[in-house]
C-alpha cells in the first residue's frame, strides 16, 4: 500500500486511531457472526442432551432446512411480505404521497406528514397492541367500522393483515425520501413538459424518474432489507395461525427459542443473511448501471 498520507499521521498512529473501532467491530460484529456460523454447523440445543454435548453436523442443518417445508413456507412468506408491503406498497404509496403533497398547502402538508410519521416513530409494542385491538375478532374496531362481526383478521387473513400493517407502519420513510428527492427535479423541466403537453404518466417516466432513479433504488434497497428482517410480525401473530404468517425472522426465533433448536436456527440465520446479500447485490448492480 503506497502512502497517500494526507493527515500526516504515519501508519503506526493511523492504526492506533482505528484500533478501538476495529476491536469493537471485532467483538460485536465479526465474532458473533463467526460464532453463529459455527453454531449453525452443530445440533446445539437450548435443553436436552445436545445442549451439553453438541455434535458437529456439518451442512446437515442447511440441507435439513432446504428440505423442510416450513422453511420453504417462511421463505415464500418473506418474499411475499417484502414484495407486497415494501417493494410495491411502501414505494408506491410513499411516492404518491410525496408527489401529491408537493403542491399542497403548507398546513395540509405538515398535517399529513405528521400523521404518516407518527405511524413510523411509535414503538413497535405500542403499535402492535393497537393493531391487535383494531383487528380483534370480538369487539375490534375494524369489525365495528366495516360491520363484519366475528371476522378474526389476524387468523383468517394473517399475511394480508401483516402487509397492510407494514405498509401503514413504514411508508413514512419512503415518503420523506421521495419528498426530498423530488426537490432535485428542476421545475423548468416540469414546466417544459407541461408546455409540450406531456401527460402525467410520461412526465413521471421521462422527466421525474431519470432524476430520482438513484433515490428509488436506494429507497427500495433499504426498505426491502428492513422488511425482510422485520420482527414486528411476531408481535401481531407470533407466526400463526399454523405457520401462515411465519416470515423468516419469526421462523428463526420460533426454532431457536420456541423449539430450542439453536443450531438449526443459526444455520437459517445464515441463509437469511445470504438472501439479504443477494437482494443488496442486485440493487447495487442496478445502481451502478445508472452511471
Amino acid at each position, binding site marked *: 500500500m503506497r502512502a497517500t498520507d494526507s493527515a500526516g499521521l504515519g501508519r503506526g498512529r493511523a492504526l492506533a486511531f482505528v484500533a478501538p473501532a476495529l476491536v469493537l467491530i471485532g467483538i460485536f460484529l465479526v465474532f458473533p457472526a463467526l460464532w453463529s456460523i459455527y453454531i449453525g454447523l452443530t445440533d*446445539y440445543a437450548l*435443553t*436436552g442432551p445436545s445442549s*451439553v454435548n*453438541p455434535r458437529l453436523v456439518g451442512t446437515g442443518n442447511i440441507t435439513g432446512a432446504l428440505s423442510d417445508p416450513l422453511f420453504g413456507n417462511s421463505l415464500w412468506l418473506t418474499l411475499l411480505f417484502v414484495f407486497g408491503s415494501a417493494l410495491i406498497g411502501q414505494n408506491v404509496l410513499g411516492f404518491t404521497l410525496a408527489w401529491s403533497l408537493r403542491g399542497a398547502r403548507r398546513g395540509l402538508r405538515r398535517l399529513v406528514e405528521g400523521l404518516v410519521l407518527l405511524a413510523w416513530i411509535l414503538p413497535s409494542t405500542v403499535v402492535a397492541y393497537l393493531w391487535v385491538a383494531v383487528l380483534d*375478532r370480538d369487539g375490534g374496531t375494524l369489525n365495528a367500522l366495516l360491520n363484519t362481526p366475528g371476522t378474526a383478521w389476524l387468523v383468517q387473513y394473517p399475511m394480508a393483515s401483516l402487509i397492510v400493517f407494514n405498509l401503514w407502519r413504514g411508508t413514512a420513510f419512503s415518503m420523506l425520501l421521495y419528498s426530498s428527492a423530488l426537490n432535485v427535479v428542476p421545475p423548468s423541466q416540469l414546466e417544459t413538459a407541461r408546455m409540450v403537453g406531456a401527460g402525467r404518466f410520461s412526465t413521471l417516466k421521462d422527466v421525474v424518474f431519470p432524476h430520482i432513479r438513484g433515490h428509488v433504488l436506494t429507497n427500495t434497497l433499504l426498505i426491502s432489507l428492513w422488511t425482510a428482517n422485520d420482527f414486528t410480525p411476531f408481535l401481531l401473530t407470533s407466526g400463526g*395461525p399454523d405457520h401462515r404468517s411465519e416470515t423468516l425472522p419469526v421462523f428463526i426465533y420460533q426454532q431457536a427459542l*420456541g423449539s430450542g433448536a439453536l443450531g438449526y436456527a443459526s444455520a437459517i440465520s445464515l441463509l437469511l443473511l445470504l438472501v439479504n446479500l443477494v437482494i443488496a447485490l442486485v440493487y447495487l448492480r442496478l445502481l451502478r448501471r445508472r452511471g
Partner: protein
Amino acid sequence: MRLRPMLSLLVVVPLLAAGCVGKPAEQNTGQNADAKEFTLVIGANALAGGKNANTAKWTAEYVIPKFVEAQKAKGVNATVRFEGNGADDKDYKTKVALDAKTGGGADVLEIDGIWLGEFAQAGQAKPLADLVGQDKVDAWDGWSKIPEAVAALGDFDGRRYGVPVGTDGRVLYFNKKLFAQAGLPADWQPRSWEDVLQAGRKLTAVAGIVPIQLNAGTAMTEATTMQGVLPLLAGTGKPVYDNGKWQGATQNVKDVLGLYQKVYSGGLGDPLLQQEAKGRDKSFAQFADNKIGILLESDYFWRSVINPANGVARMTDRDTAVGWAKVPAQRAGSGVGGQDFVSMSGGSVRVVNPNTKYPRQAWELLQFMNSFDATRARVADTPQITVRSDVNDEVLKGDPMLTYVAKEVLPITRYRPGLAQYTQVSAALQQATADVVAGKSPDDAAAAYQQAVVKAVGEAGVAGN
C-alpha cells in the same frame, strides 16, 4: 496479502469457540454451607395480581418473611427475593433455560414436571443428592408424607431432582345453566365419546354459544396435549408411550383425530378460536361468560380460572352454575387398563438451581416451602391438591370439586412419560390436531404426524398401525 490473516481468523475463532459450547459446571455440595449471610431468589411463573396470583402472594407474604425469621433465630442473616413471571408456559420455559445456560436464574425454581427430563439432560437441573448430598436429602421428614407416585413427578431416570408442588386431574366441566336450556341433566355423566357429542348436538339449540371446547392446535401448546389428545388417547386404551414406543399413525391416534373432526367440522366447536394466539385465555373468558357448554380442563380451571375470589376469569356463580364429570373412554371399558373413565395428571416441580451459590440454604428453603405449615398456608384460601397427604386431608374437605378429583379422578389417572423426547412428540400431536381443525382428514393428519414423530425419535421408537 490482507486476506491471509483474515482467513486464519475465520478458522481459529470457531475452533476456540468449539471448546466453549455446552460446558458442564463443577459442583460442590458443601459450598458456602456455613455462610452467616446469604441471598436466595425464588422463581415461579406467578405474578401478584396476574397469573397464579396465589403462589405469588403466598411466596411474598408467607414464605419469605417466615423463612427469614426462622434463619434469624439461628443467627443467620438471610435475604430472600421473589422473581415473578406472568408469561405463557412456553416462554417461561425458554426464559428459565436461558437463565440456566448463562449461569444465572433463581435459586429455587418452579418448573413444569414435564420439562424435567430435558433440563436434567442439559445439566440445567441436577439431582438433589448431587447438589446438597444424599444424607441431607434423606434427612427431610417431609418425604414420608408424600405418596410415592406423586413424589415420582420430581424424578428423572431414577434420580430425584426436586419436590413436586402438587398434582391435578382432568374432568369435563359443563355449564348447568346452558344444559338446562338444552334439556340436559344437571348431574350429567357421559359414558362414551358419543354421549359427549350427543350432548354437544343438543347444545346447538342454545343460540350464541359454543357447545364443546376441546383444546386443539399449536397456539395452545401443551394445553392441547394435556386437555385434549392425551386423555382421549387414554380413552382408546393405549397411552401415547407404550412398551418403549411412541404411538405413530395408529388406529388409536386416528380415532382421536376423528373425534376432533367431528367436533370442529360438525359445528360443535369453534375452529377459529383454536388458532388464535390467545385462544386458551379466550376460552376461559367465554366459559365464564356462559358461552361454552362443555370444556375439558384440569382442576386448575376450577381453582385459578373461574374461581370467584381470585381467578383470571371469575365466575361469580361458579359453585352453582358449573358441573363436572369424569372424562369417558371412547366406549365403556375401552380405556387404558379396561377403564370406563380416564384422566391425565401433571404438576409443577420445585428444583434447586445448579447455579446457586448456596445449595444447602436453597434446599433448606425448599424444605421449608414444603413443610406442613407452609403448604397449608399456600392452599388455605384456595384449596388445591398438594403433594402432602396430611395437608390434603385437612384442606380439601371444604371443596366438593377438589374432593371429587382427589377421590374419583386421581385413582384412575395417568402421567406423561418423563422423557426428553416427549416435548417433540407433544408438538407433533398439537400439529396433527391443528391440521384436522384446519380441515385435513384424520388419516392425512395422522400420516403427517407419523412423519414428524419418526423425524423426532427415529423409526425404531415409533409404533405404527
